[in-house]
């Protein structure tokens, strides 16, 4: 998909999410990044599902990145809207000393894997997800010390 068609899809997508978007930019190669407030994530997903249909998009992955110098953790939701052949990235920033974000589990069951992974490796608490727990893949000796391996200062 190239050119005009792709741009039209992106514009319609931005139109759908314009109430929530703090800023919009592109990630290589041609993915739309839309920055939203963490408390709005659930509303954004409800909106996306209602516009593109439950069988039109799936949550591909959740990426958590640690920024110790800004005291922030960034949580990105990569959503494949495959009914219109496009990828949208929902980007949120949450404080590093109290990383909490609402869980999407009841809206998107496919979020389970990503949320558990991000919790165990980075310590982001997804509020409302009852399955979160430590040391399912991080070995016991590390999780017992309360270390989240993917934090930059974890020292492992």
């Amino acid at each position, binding site marked *: 998909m190239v050119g005009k068609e792709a741009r039209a899809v992106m514009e319609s997508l931005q139109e759908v999410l314009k109430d929530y978007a703090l800023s919009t930019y592109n990630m290589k190669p041609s993915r739309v990044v839309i920055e939203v407030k963490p408390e709005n994530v659930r509303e954004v997903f409800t909106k996306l599902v209602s516009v593109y249909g439950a069988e039109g998009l799936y949550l591909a992955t959740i990426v958590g990145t640690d920024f110790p110098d800004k005291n922030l953790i960034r949580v990105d939701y990569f959503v494949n809207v495959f009914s219109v052949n496009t990828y949208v990235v929902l980007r949120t920033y949450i404080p590093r000393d109290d990383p909490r974000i609402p869980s999407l589990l009841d809206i998107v069951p496919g979020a389970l894997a990503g949320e558990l992974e991000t919790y165990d490796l980075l310590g982001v608490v997804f509020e409302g997800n009852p399955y979160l727990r430590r040391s399912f*893949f*991080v*070995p*016991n*000796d*590390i999780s017992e010390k309360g270390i989240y*391996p993917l934090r930059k200062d974890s020292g*492992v």
Partner: protein
Amino acid sequence: MDRVKIVKYSPWLVHFNTGACNGCDIEVLAAITPHYDPERFGVKLAPSVRHGDVLIVTGAVTKKAGERLKRLYEQMPEPKFVVAVGACACSGGVFSGSYSVLAGADKVVKVDMYIPGCPPRPEAILDGIVKLLKKLDGGEGGEGGDGKPSGSA
């Protein structure tokens, strides 16, 4: 000693994946297929660890799997031998610096034969088993780094 001699006629293998990338596992699987057919040597994959004589370890031995490996080894009947297949099981390979691996099967159990390679070819796995059998016979098994390059390109 006599039991060791008996084992060499038909050693049964048990395969345990301790966190491998599946590369070695499919090569172990390929090594039992018609092209290589180790049943010529009486070698057979055993269904359970309690029937096995030779434990084939693949993978970088993650901390969780390490405990399992120790338990499996203890469950095997005597005499028992361990073959480490692949760079990961020999020394940790590319994963040796990770927080989650012990890097090397010899950190947990005593290893009798190492088969390096990433992954070793099925022939190399057969070669390792044949060398192990020779070693059981009293001959010297390992002759790596003999200084004779073959088939240089």
